[in-house]
């Protein structure tokens, strides 16, 4: 139980020259695939698995883990620069990050994203080192009913993401939930809303929707604005965040780290739920919530710290219990087995050098990411000064290849075009797409847990209020809903008064 000694052991493994190198290769590759739309860590790790056969197990796992959290990092870069979330967890980063870039503050946004991520990654690493086993036990306490209530809370929180009409935001969440249900129903095996298309049997990919609704529609909008658009790329102020920026972003980073660390432990949601709820929390706490969505620096710091923290802590169930909390972790289990390591509760005692080496390498990896990314910021910002008429075809070709490569299906390319049009429609109808994406991610999980919870209780809804965790979460959700509704109600009153 000597954390210090254990960490020393870990660093003695992680800081060997070859392991630093593999860690570097991992985070570099991760950043690259994070920046490239479509292709994600799952595809990359499964492709690289055979290449790691010849490496020692620790080095292989260090490299593969680096790809995963490096991707979280890289995903924010395109979100900020061109409104294209490289990974789902950076969808919210688009909201304020892209606005900052339009105001010529792309460098600041990228810098804050990098620093907040580094801070969050470091804290989460310490958390894993100190408290992995009890945190894992906590995650096990969550039953299906509790998960359902957590999702409800997450969805209520998503309402806050949009500014403008409350009822439209709710409608967008439900639309997202419905889109998430397209594809094969896990319980019965029935293909829902697939309209006979074999490609839809497995549902619509989140990458397809995110790229279409965020990336493509933004391109069309930029093109229709013509010359007016050129203004924002020409006036770049401040390449790096200054002290005032950092001071402003610090509390948001701290809260984002805490929230992300916690949500990362729970199987399922992880980085996505973390980044969405961190953003919501900041917007609710802010003195002037109207700044959000218009380039608030906290709106970048909070979700970026949360998704990075969550990406790290999602290793906890894997390392302590052998339970994969997301598909990437399932792949890591495969990687361990192929390297002759049996993942599971015994790994910490049976293979301390592997366990602590991996943890220490996460800190090393986060450090390398900052070193790698800060000098890159200048380069990225320069990219923005490229004439837009050369930039957008480049975005298009990378998106198209990326989206094709997810399933090797041309149908996905067509669907992205369709969602590009839908996204443009959303802009014209003044409805914001971020809540839709959260609904889309949570929809299937929500339905699954609802059905499972009610199956276990034989149809009695009492499980949702008799289980303490679920009850607390539902009360929180209700309280949040009231807080969200209140300004609307009072505004209505004011209107009535004026009449």
């Amino acid at each position, binding site marked *: 139980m000597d954390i210090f000694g254990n960490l020393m052991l870990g660093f003695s493994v992680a800081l060997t020259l070859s392991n630093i190198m593999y860690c570097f290769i991992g985070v570099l590759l991760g950043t690259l695939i994070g920046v490239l739309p479509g292709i994600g860590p799952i595809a990359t790790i499964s492709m690289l698995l055979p290449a790691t056969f010849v490496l020692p197990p620790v080095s292989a796992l260090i490299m593969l883990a680096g790809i995963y959290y490096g991707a979280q990092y890289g995903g924010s870069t395109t979100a900020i620069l061109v409104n294209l979330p490289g990974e789902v967890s950076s969808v919210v980063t688009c909201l304020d990050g892209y606005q900052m870039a339009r105001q010529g503050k792309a460098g600041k946004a990228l810098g804050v994203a990098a620093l907040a991520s580094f801070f969050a990654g470091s804290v989460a690493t310490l958390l894993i080192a100190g408290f992995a086993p009890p945190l894992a036990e906590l995650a096990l306490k969550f039953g299906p009913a509790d998960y359902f209530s957590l999702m409800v809370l997450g969805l209520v929180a998503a309402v806050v993401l949009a500014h403008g009409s409350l009822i439209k935001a709710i409608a967008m969440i439900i639309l997202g939930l419905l889109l998430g249900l397209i594809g094969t129903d896990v*319980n019965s095996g029935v293909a829902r809303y697939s309209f006979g298309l074999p490609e839809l049997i497995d549902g619509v990919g989140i990458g397809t929707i995110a790229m279409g609704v965020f990336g493509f529609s933004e391109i069309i909008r930029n093109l229709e604005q013509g010359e007016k658009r050129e203004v924002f790329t020409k006036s770049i102020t401040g390449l790096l965040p200054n002290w005032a920026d950092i001071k402003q972003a610090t509390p948001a980073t701290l809260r984002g780290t805490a929230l992300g660390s916690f949500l990362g432990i729970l199987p399922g949601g992880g980085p996505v739920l973390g980044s969405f709820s961190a953003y919501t929390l900041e917007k609710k706490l802010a003195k002037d919530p109207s700044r959000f969505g218009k380039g608030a620096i906290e709106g970048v710091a909070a979700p970026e710290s949360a998704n990075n923290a969550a990406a790290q802590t999602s290793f906890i169930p894997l390392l302590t219990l052998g339970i994969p909390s997301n598909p990437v*972790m399932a792949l890591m289990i495969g990687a361990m087995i192929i390297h002759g390591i049996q993942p599971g509760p015994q790994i910490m005692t049976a293979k301390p050098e592997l366990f602590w080496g991996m943890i220490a390498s996460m800190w090393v990896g986060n450090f390398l990411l900052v070193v790698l990314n800060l000098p890159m910021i200048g380069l990225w910002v320069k990219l923005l000064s490229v004439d837009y008429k050369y930039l957008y075809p480049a975005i298009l070709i990378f998106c198209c290849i990326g989206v094709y490569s997810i399933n090797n299906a041309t149908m996905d390319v067509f669907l992205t075009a369709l969602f590009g049009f839908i996204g443009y429609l959303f802009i014209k109808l003044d409805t914001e797409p971020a809540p839709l994406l959260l609904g889309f991610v949570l929809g299937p999980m929500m339905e699954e847990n609802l059905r499972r919870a009610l199956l276990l209780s034989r149809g009695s809804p009492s499980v949702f209020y008799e289980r303490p965790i679920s009850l607390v979460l539902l009360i929180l959700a209700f309280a949040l809903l009231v807080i969200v509704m209140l300004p609307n109600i009072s505004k209505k009153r004011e209107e009535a008064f004026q009449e």
Partner: protein
Amino acid sequence: MKRREFLAAGGAIVAASALPARAAYPEKPLRYYIPFSPGGESDIAARLQQPFFKAKFGTELVVESKVGAGGALAWSQLNTFPGDGYTIMGSNLPHLVLQPLEGNVQYKTDDIVNIIFFQYTPDAIVVRSESPFKTYQDLVAAAKAKPGTLNFAGSGTNSANHAAHERLNNLTGTKTQYVAFKGTGDLVASLIGGHVDGAMSYASLALAQRGKTRVLAVASDKRLDYIPDTPTFRELGLDWVDGAFRGIAVPKSTPEDLRRKLSDMFAEINREAEFRKQMTDQGMELVDITYDKMPAFMEERKKVYLGTAKLMGLAK
């Protein structure tokens, strides 16, 4: 250590044999589609085969995931691929028999040309260590005392686990509830967290969750080495030796000689001592149902699974 040395040696052999041209087949990499998500039993087995395939036959075995609909997504597409011997696909029983019976999938059992089944995991009842059920008898007694209250987690609907669960209810005359999860990895948290009473899974789960779980009974013909205290269903008086078979299928257009050749190649990998060890370490039993044994084997299996399907209410 030994493993890595072997891999290094394998690499050297490949490097050496890459230069002179071998026999006509295989002369380029094979694409090996796995219908289940990376990290699952099917994926791991395929990846364990990879280095041996390369060392023995000199070309790469490229594993690619084609996940969805409990495998049906990939199997529905199998026959659209060219039958040139360079496309193969993982196949699973009883899925291939049970899914078409349900009627929602786009393939029929006989559409799938299986060339080999090489591994097998027996059904097993698993509970968490803290569970009040110390033995199989405890469990059955509890299930009989309070019918309809116990919950069993399993991987998927109309899957091997689902079928096994219905069989348990039928053979013991109990009534318990099956709760479907997306995969074995998905159900572990609910099992260990105590949100379900037990899991109808594979014996290999006991290896993955050593110390956190207890296996009450296993559907193998004799006791397993890694859980010597766990009785088989036969010992407990139930006629039940079953589990999930995993193998390889090819597109229908693949010529007879290539089917045979591929079957022999994977049977050869199955004979490798090192491969056997790696597989059994994961709780996967090796079987050798090669292409020539396939027709008889499938006939026998179909009969067994049709029986199970009736219990599940699938067969109309």
